[in-house]
Structure formats: C-alpha cells, structure tokens
C-alpha cells in the first residue's frame, strides 16, 4: 500500500509543486519593469535603478535566478522581500498562521455543520427541512464571498452593530487581538464553503438509504438513531470527504476576497499586496504553499477514494 500507492504520488506531488512555481516565476518575468523601478518610482535615475537591480540580483538571467532561488528554497531560505527587505519566511509564516486560524475555524465549525445539515436534508428528503437546507446550499453556491461578506457587514456591523466591520489590529496583531473580529470573516467563508459539502452529503445519504443493508437493518427493527449512526453516516461520509478535501483547496480563493474585505492580516491580503508590488520572493513562497495545499488535499481525496473503493488499490486501476 505504502510503496505502491503513496511513494509515486509523493514524487509527482513534488514535480507538480515545482512546475507550478516555475509557471508563476515565468509569468512574472513577462512584467514590464521590475521591483527596482517599482521601489524607486518613475523619477529614479537609470544608475540608481541599475544599482538596486544588482543588489536585488535582478541583473542575472531568469533561468539562473530560478535555479539559485530553488537552491536556497530547498535549504529553507526563501529570500528577502523586495519591498520590506525582511526575510520572506517569517513574514509569510505570520500571515499563514493567521489564515490557518481563520480557515481552521471555518473547516471545523463550518464543515461539521455542513455534514449535519446534509445528513438532515438527506434523511428528510423532499420534506420541508430538505427544501430549506437545499435552498440555502443553492444560495451558498451562487453567491460570491464578497457579497456574503458585504451583506453580513450590513446586517451585523451597520444595522445591528455587534461585530466590527474590519480588523483594526494591524499587520502584526496576535491571534488574541484578531479574535474579536473573527466572526464575520469566518461566517462568510463558512457559508460559501459549506454549500457543496451539504449537497454531496445529502446525495450520498439518499444513496445509502436506498441500499439493501439499510433496508435489512430497518426490517431487523433497529432504532433510527442506531441506524443513522451505525450504518448511514459511516457510508455516506466517505464520498463526502472527497468534496471536503477539494473545498479546503478552494478555501484559498475565498480567503483572498474575505481577508481583503475585512482587512484581515493573512495570506490573502499578503498575496494581493505582493502581486501589486511585484514582490517575487513573497509571491513564490505563497505559490509553494498554495500548491502544497492543493497537492496534499488531492492526495487525501485519492486516499479516501481508495479506502472507499478497494478495486482502486490494484496498481493497474490507479489513476
């Protein structure tokens, strides 16, 4: 299982991350002007620009720069930010912790709630709880994060002012300082990210309820609670885990919008700022982290699928 299944996938995962970084690096090379002109502004003398370029290592050929970046990156040194002059690692690390905290709340609270709602909808198929939950899920699928966030601000910051509309704690705030501003960003992400999970859970619960073993269990006369907990949930949750894994990767996109709306000092705000200032080392580290998240989620989804369908365990049938 380990050598046949995990090792080759891990190899490909590394290649995928490397290629993804190379793609972003290549795209950034096409930019007219670079960080040197960006930092010094329009009126800088050509000499000053040339000096700064040399200092930042921008005068080398792109290939050389990528290889040297890669060499340093493998030893854990991701370079210094072209804007702040500080090492990129700690800066991105701080943002990552903040984002991981926000995403963590969303995943734990939002996804468990979504699984329960999906279960309820599936069990009450075509009755009012199902209609209500399915409609909510449809709305969640159809409304961009920025609209959910805007409406939440309108409701809970302007009409009934109980939560702050933006984070005022600043870029270097600790988690405890961020905590009071957390509810609205977390709610916005939860609403949007849960929609597909609710839907998938509902579908798989309905599928499981039609199976012979559930019918048999019912005929045996076991209680509904036992039926749901022992038979329905374990079988229905595995296909849903796949969607959960995909959703974690999708969260990255939502995080960018939500963080920028609430001025939350995480990876999303950092991404926008570093793209705007063409801060290549920061962008590359964010790409590495994003690609890693994608790859790990895919691996977990594949693993879940393999556990679910033993036929896939045979190497010839592996994707």
């Amino acid at each position, binding site marked *: 299982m380990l050598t046949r299944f995990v090792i080759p996938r891990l190899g490909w995962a590394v290649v995928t991350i490397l290629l993804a970084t190379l793609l972003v690096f290549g795209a950034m090379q096409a930019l007219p002007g670079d960080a040197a002109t960006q930092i010094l502004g329009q009126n800088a003398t050509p000499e000053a620009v040339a000096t700064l370029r040399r200092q930042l290592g921008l005068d080398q050929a792109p290939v050389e720069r990528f290889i040297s970046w890669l060499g340093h990156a493998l030893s854990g040194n991701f370079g210094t930010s072209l804007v702040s002059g500080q090492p990129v690692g700690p800066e991105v690390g701080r943002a990552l912790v903040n984002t991981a905290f926000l995403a963590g709340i969303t995943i734990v609270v939002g996804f468990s709630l979504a699984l329960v709602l999906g279960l309820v909808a599936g069990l009450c198929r075509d009755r009012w709880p199902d209609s209500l939950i399915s409609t909510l899920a449809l709305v969640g699928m159809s409304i961009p994060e920025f609209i959910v966030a805007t409406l939440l601000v309108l409701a809970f910051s302007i009409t009934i002012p109980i939560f702050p509309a933006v984070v005022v704690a600043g870029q270097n705030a600790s988690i405890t300082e961020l905590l009071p501003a957390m509810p609205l960003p977390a709610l916005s992400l939860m609403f949007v990210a849960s929609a597909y999970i609710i839907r998938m859970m509902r579908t798989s619960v309905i599928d499981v309820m039609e199976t012979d073993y559930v019918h048999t269990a019912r005929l045996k006369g076991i209680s509904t609670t036992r039926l749901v907990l022992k038979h329905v949930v374990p079988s229905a949750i595995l296909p849903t885990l796949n969607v959960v894994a995909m959703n974690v990767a999708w969260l990255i996109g939502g995080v960018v919008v939500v963080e*920028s709306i609430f001025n939350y000092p995480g990876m999303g705000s950092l991404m926008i700022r570093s793209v705007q200032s063409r801060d290549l080392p920061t962008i590359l580290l964010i790409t590495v982290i994003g690609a890693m998240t994608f790859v790990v989620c895919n691996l977990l989804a594949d693993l879940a699928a393999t556990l679910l369908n033993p036929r896939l365990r045979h190497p010839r049938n592996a994707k």
Partner: protein
Amino acid sequence: MTSATIVVETTQASRGTLPGLRRVTRSILRSKPATLGFALVILHILLAILAPLIAPGNPTENNPAAVLQLPGGPFPLGTDTLGRDILSRTLYGGQYALAVSFASTALAVILGTVIAGLAAFYGGWVDQVITRLLDSVLAVPAILAMLVLVTVFGSGPEVIVLAVVVVYTGGVTRVVRAAAMDVMPKDYIVAARARGEGVFYILSREVFPNILDVVLVEFAMRASWVVLLVSSLSFLGFGANPPTPDWGLMVAENRSLMAVVPLATLAPIVFLATLIVGLNLAADGLAKSLGVDRMKEILG
C-alpha cells in the same frame, strides 16, 4: 410526423446514450427549478442586450449636481458618489459580466475538450505529459494566477478572458478526458481506427458526439463559477476598469456608503445573485435531463 420523430430519436440512441434535443427540452420544462433557471438566464441576457433601450440614463455620465440621491425622480434607484444613475449602471452591468464570462467559459471548454480528446486518443506518454502539466497549472491557486496575469497584461476584458481560460482549462480537461477515456475502447472507435480514419475524424465524428452531454454540463457548470470569479476579480480591483458599469465593481465602489445609499450596493448584488442562481439551476436541470452526475463532474 410522429413516426419520423421516433426514427430520428432511435438512430441517435443507437449511436450513443444521448437523448435528443426534444427530450432534453421537455425534461427541463417539466422541472420547475430548471425552468426557473433557464428563465432567469434568458431574462438576464435580454436585459443586458436591451440595456441601451430600457436604461433611463447614461451609465457612465457623472452628475455633480445629483450626488448620492435617494430613489426618486429621474433616478429610480438613486445615484452613487459621482451622481451616476444606479439603475442604468446595474442594467448595463450585465453586458460586461455576461460577455466576458460567456466568451471565457466557451473558450476554456472548447480548448479543454480538444486537449482532452487528444490525450484520450493518443494515450501513453502524450496523455501523461498533458495530465501532469495541467495538474501543475491547477496547483497554482486560481486567484493568484489571475492576479498575476492581470498585473502582467493589464485588466482589459481580453486579459480576463485569457486568465479564466488559463485557470479553468485544466479542470475542464480533467473531466472531459475521463469521459473520452470511457468512450475510447468502444467498438465503434476501434472500428474507426481499424478503418484507418484520422485523428480529426475520430475525435469530431465519433468521440465528440458521444461525450457532448458531459461537455454541455461542464459548460453550464463552469459558467456559474466564471461569473462568480469574474465579479470577484472586479470587486478586488483586478477586473473591470472604472467607469465600466460592472456589478462587482459597483459593490466595491458603494459598499462603504451602504448606510447612506443601500440600493447602490444592493441592486448589483440582487442582479449578480439571480444570474448565478439561474445558471446553477439551469446547470442542475441540464445535468439531470442529460443523465450526468453533476457532483462527479465537480470532483473531476
């Protein structure tokens, strides 16, 4: 007449599993949510096309004398900070959203289908290389890829189309390739290969008609995501350029004044939400009537 119809449908059924256009239409009309979805989408297309005729004013004209007006008089939904008519801007807003989203979705689906067909046809290392390359593109967070592309090439509509194509072609290819792979070992393809037919013939005449259902659902589903993504980009300031009337941009421009002129934010929100709800319901209806599992397509 009836017998002729039946003949047409049976010949189609014998080529593959695709139901005819008539059956699909009937099945969509029988489902209330699907009908509502298609109606909403058609309504939005009509509003966008007819905007110049029905909008009460010019969507980009500033009126310094009538700034932040509440609804009434010549401004049925009020005005924004520059005195622009909210209703006109909202009505025109569909043009950018629909044109950019439709063009980019269509391009991504066409390109993805062609790549998927080639990967499935040649198999072996060609397939491996294509799959791995597309996986790497998919591994770049979509929003980061789009931000980078917009920064590099500017935020014109053609760049947004390009960015969506870059971000979504990989996903389309994944799904369509799986469908094409299922079709490849079928007898009619083996027979066509044995006859010595070329790649183009086999892909366009034998493979494509039999995976059309998957491609269509893919288009409908992607369209709703693309509208969402394009409006989010505009909201972040990386999409439509001011003063283009665009819903995402309008929400960004007016949301700090929600307490003063709520309709300036709420009107584009309602339009955007109804369009995407319509697209989602339409995609669901289409998937159901074509017998495609939508959740499976999402997972790829």
